[in-house]
Structures are given as C-alpha cells and as structure tokens.
C-alpha cells in the first residue's frame, strides 16, 4: 500500500488526570471511508479536534499526505486539503446559504485582502458555491439566510461548505446528529455519492449508517483504539461486542 493520506501516530492528549486520547494510531488510505465509533466519552471529538488543529496533542504526530501537520493551525491545514464539518452545526447564521459556501471557496481562491470589488459578483466563487449546494441538493435554497433553514438543511450546508474547499480529506463529526429518519437516509445516500470523490473520516453514532458506509472502522474506547478493521471483522470482534456493541442489538441484527 502506498503512503496513507492521513497517518496518526501514537497520539496522546490528557485533560488533568484523564487521558482522553491514549496512544492512538490509525491510517486512512486515499479513497477510503474510515469510520471512528465508540461509546460516549470515548474521546472521539477530542481526537477529531487534534486532527483539525483546534486542540494540540501532548505527544504523537499527525501527517497529511506525508506532511507533518501536528502543530499547524486550523486554517493552514485547511489550505492543505483538510475540511471538516462540526458536530454541532456551526455556520454563519446571518449569511445566506450561498454566502456561507462561497466564503469557503473564497478561502481557497487566493488571499482576501481585496477591498473594492464586490465579492458577491465574483462569478468563479458563486459558481463554486452553487455547484456545492447542488451537490447536497439545496440549490433552491441558495439565497435563504442560514438562520431560516431547518436543522436538516443546515447539516447539508455544513457538508456543502466542506465540499466547496475541494478537500482531499473530509472529517465529518456526526453528520447525522439530530436528523430524522428520512433526513438520515438522504444523508447516507449523499455520503455514498461523495465517497467516490473524496476520502472521508466519519465519526458517527448511527450504527446502521456506519456499517453501511465504512470501508474500515476503528473502535475507540477510553481513548484507545481497541479494534480496527472492515465492518465484518468489527462485528465479529469479541472485545468490541463487550465494550460497545453489546447493548446495541440493532447492529448485531443488521446485516
């Protein structure tokens, strides 16, 4: 196998006496959809934050495409092709959907120390925004303020924003959080489409979705990766069953 797209090596992050990320190592190959699951408090969000640069690890390293990014600030990682969505929707509420997405495109189209020309009339940026909105099926809502969109629509905009930066790797922190059944199904469909174009790290609680989508799954418990492998192997793994899946009968029944 070639150099993995994302390589995490022996990452450690402590909060006081608690080790939230305990010697985590994992590789994500180009083109792979790698899911990270684990019970509440397993340290999934802490791990994601270290990948995106919102939190610094105490030791270990993160590299993207062979380049060490362990201590790069968030905006630099983004320039290298790492995009994220937030677990709790985090958009610009007083901007329209198109503005939100166009800003992401703008961040990757040269510097923004341009003071005079109307940015909303830059065709390249608008086209990119509309393309990304179309991708998530929200083109018809382009000119609506984000604060007036439904929760489900905002989750989709999150994805459009991430896509507009044309990332190599997409980090999705619980994209299904708070979605209804039909909305979840739409999101799974969408992710099925996107995985053909971009590598994805997916942190998600929705087990049927994870097992339907993932090429590989890493299971995080108390900050440690206790198992990593394809969905069938994870489903068969005794440690995983005991630590995590035992109380989720839905998974053991789901084939």
């Amino acid at each position, binding site marked *: 196998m070639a150099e993995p797209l994302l390589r995490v090596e022996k990452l450690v992050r402590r909060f006081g006496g608690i080790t939230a990320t305990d010697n985590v190592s994992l590789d994500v190959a180009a083109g792979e959809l790698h899911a990270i699951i684990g019970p509440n408090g397993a340290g999934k969000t802490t791990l994601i934050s270290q990948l995106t640069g*919102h939190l610094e690890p105490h030791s270990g390293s993160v590299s993207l495409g062979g380049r060490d990014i362990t201590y790069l600030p968030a*905006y630099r990682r983004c320039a290298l092709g790492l*995009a994220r969505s937030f677990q709790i929707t985090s958009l610009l509420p007083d901007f329209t959907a198109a503005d939100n997405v166009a800003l992401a495109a*703008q*961040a990757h189209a040269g510097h*923004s*120390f341009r003071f005079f020309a109307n940015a*909303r009339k830059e065709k390249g940026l608008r086209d990119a925004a509309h393309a990304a909105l179309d991708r998530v099926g929200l083109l018809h809502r382009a000119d609506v303020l984000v604060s007036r969109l439904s929760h489900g629509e905002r989750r989709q905009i999150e994805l459009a924003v991430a896509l507009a930066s044309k990332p190599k790797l997409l980090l999705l922190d619980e994209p299904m959080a708070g979605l209804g059944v039909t909305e979840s199904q739409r999101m799974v469909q969408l992710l099925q489409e996107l995985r053909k174009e971009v590598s994805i790290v997916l942190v998600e609680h929705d087990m049927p979705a994870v097992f339907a989508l993932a090429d590989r799954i890493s299971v995080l418990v108390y900050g440690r990766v206790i198992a990593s492998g394809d969905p069938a192997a994870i489903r068969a793994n005794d440690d995983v069953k005991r630590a995590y899946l035992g109380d989720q009968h839905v998974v053991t029944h789901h084939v």
Partner: protein
Amino acid sequence: MKAFTVSKAVTALMLAGLVLLPLYSQLSGNIFILTLFTRVVILALAAASLNLMMGYGGMMSFGHAAYLGIGGYAVGMLAQEGIGSGFIQFPVALAASALYALVIGALSLRTRGVYFIMITLAFAQMAYYVASGLARYGGDDGLTVYKRSDFSGLINLGNRTQFYYLCLACLFGVVFLIWRIVNSRFGLVVQGLRSNEQRMQAIGFPAKRYQLVCFVISGMMCGLAGALLANNTDFISPAVMYWTRSGDLMVMVILGGMGTLFGPVMGAVVYLLLEEFLSQLTEYWALIMGPLLLLIVLFGRGGIMGLLGRLNRG
C-alpha cells in the same frame, strides 16, 4: 428587495439636508448652524469609522476617541513647529493613526469580548495621559492651532463653507469606501468572523490578520476625523481623547444602527442635535437625554435604522 423604503427616503432626505445646509445658513444669516453642523459631520465620520469595526467587524472598541486625539495632535503639533501644509499634516495624521492602530490592535486582538473592550479603553486612557504630559504642546490645557491646515490655494479651510464641504466630502468618501469594503472579499471575511470565528478558521481564514487590517483601516478613518476636528475648533486638547468621548461615539453608532451604512451618520446627527437642543432648555439636559437613549435602544433594536425598517414593513 424593494426600491423604495422608509429608511432610504429618510436617509436621502438627511443627505440632501447636509448638502444644502450652507445655502440655508447663507440665506437665513444663521452662521451658528453651519459651525454646529461642521462638528456634526466630523463626528459622523468618526462614528462611521467606529461602525466599520464594531458594526461590521464585531470588535467593540471602547477607545476610538484616541484617534481623534492622534489626528488632531498631528495637525496641532506640526502647526506649532511651523509646518502648516495640509499636504504634510493630513498624511502624518493618517500614518500616526495607522501606526497606533497597528500596535494597539496587535495587542488587543489577543483578547476577546469584555477584555477587548477593557484593553482598548485602557490604551486610549494611556494616550490621554501621554497627551496631558506633553508640556511643550500645552499639556493638560491643550494647544491652540493658530493657523488652519494650508492646502496652498486648492481649498481655504478658513472659509466656513469651504471647510464644511471639505468635511462633508470626507464623510461621503469614507461612507463610500466602507460600502465598497463591506461587500468586498475582505468585508465578507470580516463579517464572517463577527458571525462565527471558529467556522471561519475551519474553512481556512487566519482570523487575526483580517481583523487587524480592519482595525487599522477604521483607525485611519477616525484619524482623518481628528485632523478635521482640530481645524474646526482651532484647538486640540487631551479632552477629545477622554473615555467619555469614546462612549459618545459608541452611542452614536448604536443609536443610528450598528452595521448599517448610514446608521452612524444618522446617529451622530440625532445625538448631537438632541444634545444641543436639550442643553439650551435646561442645565440638566443629560437627565432627559439618558432615558431617551435608553428607550430607543430598548425598544428600537437596530437603532433608528431598525425602527425605520420596521415602519416600512408595518
């Protein structure tokens, strides 16, 4: 978007009034009103500059009056040293404001929220005390500017009408610039940072760099107002930098409507006219002014512009 709205109509009326004011003053022989409105226009310029930072950038600067002082002292000190040319005084005023903004901004932007307000206030108070200590330039008592900036025949600042129109042109120029800026790439980034800084970092914008540039632009615009103010009063003293003056500017912005293009101009006009009118009625004018402002802020969210906007819908 509707072509005609109440707020647009009121704004147009106000602007027309400002343009035609010297004519009225001439015809009625009321010279005082021109002097008053020159001050109004200059402070409207200062309020507009603060609005760029506070309204669009979400950075609550409580030390904006410092730039009035810096711009003013640049003119006063150079005049004192025998350099009377406006072509030197005004660029120096702008450069000094930019430099101050760059240093103060770089330090202040390490903090957020209340701390940002307090640190900008603290730096402005420092500037105030530094000015008070300038014995050569009048110290506490201030400095008389014996000769207004000289633009070698291009425009005569000694002429009331010409000076008024210079101030008005500066105001319109600055508002035009702000209008272009807030719709530019830069403006969208700054407004995005106001809305959600973490998100903007995550999509790849280095927040502080953009905020600092906004801080500097805003400071330079206010420095221009300071240079005009010193010419208007023929005098500059530390008092223009006092924190209450920064508070006045904030009130003008909030009164008129934060984050609206003409709100601060409207706020300055209303605030200063009210002050003038009420102080003629009674010595205790602040007792009326205070509750009045409170009412507008409490019930007219979005200031006067917000109120006018609702009229339109209602």
